[in-house]
């Protein structure tokens, strides 16, 4: 069989396609940048709800109470009732609410679905004036303290990478998927009424 130009071209094209196809998986196209060290990446903390990514360490409710009073109470209140910072506990039973006059009370206790979020957020972003300054043990302890004050874990609970993901938050099943877009037919020629006017400027 003689080898035609077309065949050579087809073979070359197939080889190129195979190479290009592999590039997405096995090889970078541009190759810019560098490979970071494990130590560099180990600096970041972002646990998943199942506990993957939680660091070593542990903390008790009692230890957490001490850290809370030093680091958190000035903004979140002595009794975790909130202030400059969000209220942290209470509010169970307020989420079902059809009244525009009464606000639902959304706290760690009443609203947050995952315990790992509490560790993650505290570790990354708190306290506001010195984020990232708490040790992993301190953050586990704070997590234990807040969850105990929320009556979610007992007074003798120890939080760690093993125990924290097993905590079931009261509002664990409180979230649903985005169902939008909704369908709104254009409204015209219906009876309208002016319902309210913004308060007059003084």
């Amino acid at each position, binding site marked *: 069989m003689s080898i035609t130009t077309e065949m050579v071209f087809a073979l070359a094209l197939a080889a190129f396609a195979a190479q290009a196809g592999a590039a*997405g998986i096995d090889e*970078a196209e*541009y190759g*810019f*940048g560098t*490979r*970071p060290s494990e130590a*560099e*990446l180990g600096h*970041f903390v*972002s*646990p*998943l*709800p199942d506990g993957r990514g939680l660091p070593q360490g542990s903390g008790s409710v009692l230890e957490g109470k001490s850290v809370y009073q030093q680091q958190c109470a000035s903004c979140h209140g002595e009794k975790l009732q*909130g202030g*400059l910072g*969000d*209220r942290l506990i209470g*509010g169970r039973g307020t*989420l*079902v609410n*059809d*009244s*525009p*006059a*009464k*606000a*639902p009370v*959304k*706290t760690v206790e009443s*609203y947050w*679905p*995952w315990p790992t*979020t509490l560790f*993650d*957020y505290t570790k*990354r*972003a708190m306290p*506001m004036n010195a*984020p990232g300054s708490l040790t992993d043990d301190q953050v586990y302890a704070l997590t234990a303290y807040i969850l105990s004050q929320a009556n979610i874990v007992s007074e003798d609970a120890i939080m760690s990478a093993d125990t924290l993901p097993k905590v079931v938050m009261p509002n664990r099943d*409180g979230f*649903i*998927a*985005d169902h*939008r*877009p*909704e369908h*709104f037919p*254009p*409204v*015209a*020629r*219906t009876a*309208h009424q*002016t*319902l309210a*006017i*913004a*308060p007059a*400027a003084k």
Partner: protein
Amino acid sequence: MSSNSNEAPLGIEARLAREARDLAVKRADPSSAYFAGDAPVRADRRRFVLQSMAALGGTAGVMRNAFAETGVGATVHDVPADASKTPGYPLADESYGTRSQFETEVRRRFKTPTPLSSWTMTPLEAGCGIITPSGLHFERSHAGTAVIDASAHSLYVHGMVREPRKYSMKDLRRFPSISRIMFLECSGNGLTEWSKPTMRTVQFTHGLTSTSEWTGVPLATILKEAGLQRGAKWLLAEGGDAAAMTRSIPLDKAMKDCFLAYGQNGEALRPEQGYPLRLMVPGYEGNINIKWLRRLEVSDTPFMTREETSKYTDLLPDGKAVQFSLAMEAKSVITSPSGEMVLDGPGFHEITGLAWSGRGSIRRVDVSTDGGRTWRAASLQGPVLPICHTRFHFPWTWDGGEAILQSRCVDDTGYVQPTLGQLIAVRGLNGPLGSIYHLNAIQSWLVANDGKVSNVHHY
């Protein structure tokens, strides 16, 4: 927006007081659309201005309001009586230009308990065209504006990838780039307006949306470089600010049209927009467009960060909350005439405003001047771009009677902007702030017989 219904309702009283002070300045300015002199004076604005200037001498223009005195965003120069009779100020050898000292529009901060976690709103009423000046682009930050030296900044890509990568800003600029003119809107835009009309001006009812041209690298390019592992479905984006803001992004969206922006309106990002690097997620709520981006971690599940669980979720009256409601639905607003402006008598007034959709392009905008009984098509001003502010115009001759102005947009998916009643019917009113986020209802402005425009609920 990290608003919390537990807080003393977001400092609304303080905000209203501040808005009233701002309005007082505008009302005293005869050249302002908000000027509230009595009718004979308004009819003779030109003479009023000239008399004021004569009374104040050569610096009349500078004196006419508080902002011009301090020159916010401007360099203040002496004002000659006749600029054609004396040379102007010399051209500098090197400069970064500023606006005219006579322009006074500013972003205004919503008075949250701390200015470190707060937001400022764009003066939409003063805008023209579709681009928001970078200095007036709304801000929302959770722990202040980070100060980051671009030459020392790195982006890490890791998790379920073939090989973790670290990029300097110089590395990122080597990749093929794209530019896109695109709106960003905070999903908390209008949160004060669910249960009753609260703020008075369009800046405070709608000013958490802005449009810029953004330039950067497609995220797909970066993710392909690192190589996605089988089973990868989500991506965590983390900011390098003091909040280390984190959000999870579905990987199909990340690969579809997200990009990493280092440019805004032809120059580097502004600090408050995430300098030196920001994740752009076209059409999705502002918060997920992570500023000061330092890290991308690929995963098989969402990370359930604070900002996608305890905040930015839509609590319904039955106690369930909608999560990952990320797309910003179609919305429009008339920016002129708008709240607290005073129409200068019957006759011709152009109605103009903005429409935008996170799901595509604006296909049409209808305007009603009779509170929604009848609607007529507005003209759309080109360019009409997907996921971008689109300006509309509508000629209107005011007969001097009471009128209620509304705009209603339709995007190219066929979605029709709802009335507030329609939206409340599906979201409910769970507390004074309703479900807080994603209020995209038709806005109503009441024009009274005396020309005064007010924010009203009418549906």
